[in-house]
């Protein structure tokens, strides 16, 4: 698709889009570094960013090895949440009976503290991968259900009338009208769900695990290895950010450009 913003002004603003957050990040770390040095903060409480980065580089093989199961848990939990959340969100819109029957249950399932039932999952499916996937799924599927439902229901009733008068079948109305209208909303749900899936996987690992970044984090904490804790946190944060933007890349490919919310609109809604 042709992008009409390929001008020099456009290129400048795009460079600004990348430079601005990088500059802010650099300033944040600089401030942190300066604070630890000038205030003589005990490294066991708040280590300097440089020592954390050094540790990450030093332990990179181990961290990569521990990142892999965590990544798999996140992706499986997130995938399961899409596979189940999107159909349920759709069902709720099209069947008032299903809405009445299931919606309170779904809301109730969100009120149960996931951290509290995570140990139960271990009892049910063991300490392996499934218990973490289950937590990641449970914590991330709700925003998908809600955003899918909201998106599909957001269609102008007059638009439905128009489609009926054009002889559209329910399936055609779904594909040509409801789905495109719903996509932006579905994707904002997916982005929330992705960040929650990361939380879910770590919560799962906190409860019982012998691998994963959550386990590494707990282990380092037990050793009073603050630098190790921060290293795991950094890697985890980076992983979450990459996954979040992966969803955004897919969104850009799937949601028509002319229909995507502009950044100004988004900043207002957020």
């Amino acid at each position, binding site marked *: 698709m042709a992008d009409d913003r390929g001008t020099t002004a456009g290129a400048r603003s795009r460079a600004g889009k990348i430079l601005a957050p990088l500059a802010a990040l650099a300033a944040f770390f600089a401030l942190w570094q300066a604070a630890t040095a000038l205030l003589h903060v005990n490294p066991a409480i708040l280590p300097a960013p440089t020592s954390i980065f050094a540790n990450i580089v030093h332990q990179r093989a181990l961290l990569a090895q521990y990142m892999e199961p965590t990544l798999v848990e996140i992706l499986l939990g997130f995938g399961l949440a899409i596979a189940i959340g999107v159909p349920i969100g759709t069902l709720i819109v099209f069947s008032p009976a299903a809405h009445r029957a299931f919606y309170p249950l779904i809301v109730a399932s969100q009120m149960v503290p996931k951290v509290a039932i995570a140990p139960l999952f271990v009892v049910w499916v063991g300490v392996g991968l499934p218990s973490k996937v289950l937590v990641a799924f449970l914590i991330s599927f709700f925003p998908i259900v809600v955003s899918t439902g909201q998106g599909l229901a957001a269609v*102008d009733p007059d638009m439905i*009338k128009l489609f*009926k*008068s*054009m*002889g*559209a079948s329910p399936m055609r109305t779904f594909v040509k009208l409801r789905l*495109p209208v719903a996509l932006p909303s579905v994707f904002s749900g997916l982005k929330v769900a992705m960040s929650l899936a990361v939380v879910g996987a770590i919560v799962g690992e906190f409860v019982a695990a012998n691998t994963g970044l959550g386990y590494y984090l707990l282990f380092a904490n037990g050793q009073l290895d603050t630098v190790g804790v921060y290293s795991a946190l950094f890697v985890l944060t980076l992983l979450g950010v990459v996954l979040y933007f992966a969803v955004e890349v897919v969104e850009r490919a799937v949601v028509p450009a*002319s*229909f995507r919310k502009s950044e100004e609109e988004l900043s207002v809604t957020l």
Partner: protein
Amino acid sequence: MPTLAERPTTVQGSRIDVRGVTKEYSSGGATGSRVLGPIDLRVEAGEFVTIVGPSGCGKSTLLSIVAGLTKASAGEVAIGDARVAGPYTDLGIVFQKDLLLDWRTVLDNVLLQAEVRGLDPRAYRSVANELLALVGLDGFQDHYPRELSGGMRQRVAICRALLLDPPVVLMDEPFAALDALTREQVAMDFADIWLKKQKTVIFITHAIAEAIILADRVLVMTPRPGKIDLELRVEIPHPRSMLVRETPEFAHYATEIRKRFEANGVLHQHGR
């Protein structure tokens, strides 16, 4: 695909008959509150009928019932020989909102009419282009709706309604959201198309001047529950221009309608 000019008018057999139609909304109790009717109405094939009435008189509901999009509480509608039961699809509708799909170009919005029915949109490209040219949108085919003004968007909606050359066109206050100047221009453009293609048209509006200028026949409705209160045949020859408003005949029709509105309490005089 034949061009627009070559295609025969498909207007025969598109007479609209509305017989004893009412609409009631039950509000819990046994007796519902009536918002419309009873309405008895015949629109001859190729006739342009405008319906004027105050807000809330049920005129949009009437149009929706004719299109089979709303169920009447009593009575029936027939188009040609077919009784309308469920959405009637051999027609074009233009609503007050243009209802364009933001993610489709102008051309693709017009072609939606074919696509949604499972027809090959490519076969209708030339017709769509001709229609767009007819309403002054040549060259805007690849623009997106957000790049167009309100008047241009509504013109696209009209092209979408006309793509398959339907014998019947229903219009529900189609120009109400436009500014006065644009409104006149789009109205005259549509009158032009109607003259060329002789559709059977029901056109809802609350603008008296618009109702007279476009119509073969103006129907005036009472406040809720809306009934047909006055029927005026407009004996001004087509094609008409906006200058028609300066003629005594026009003034006469407008006065008739105003008087009826005053009698019904829709309009009232001040300080005289």
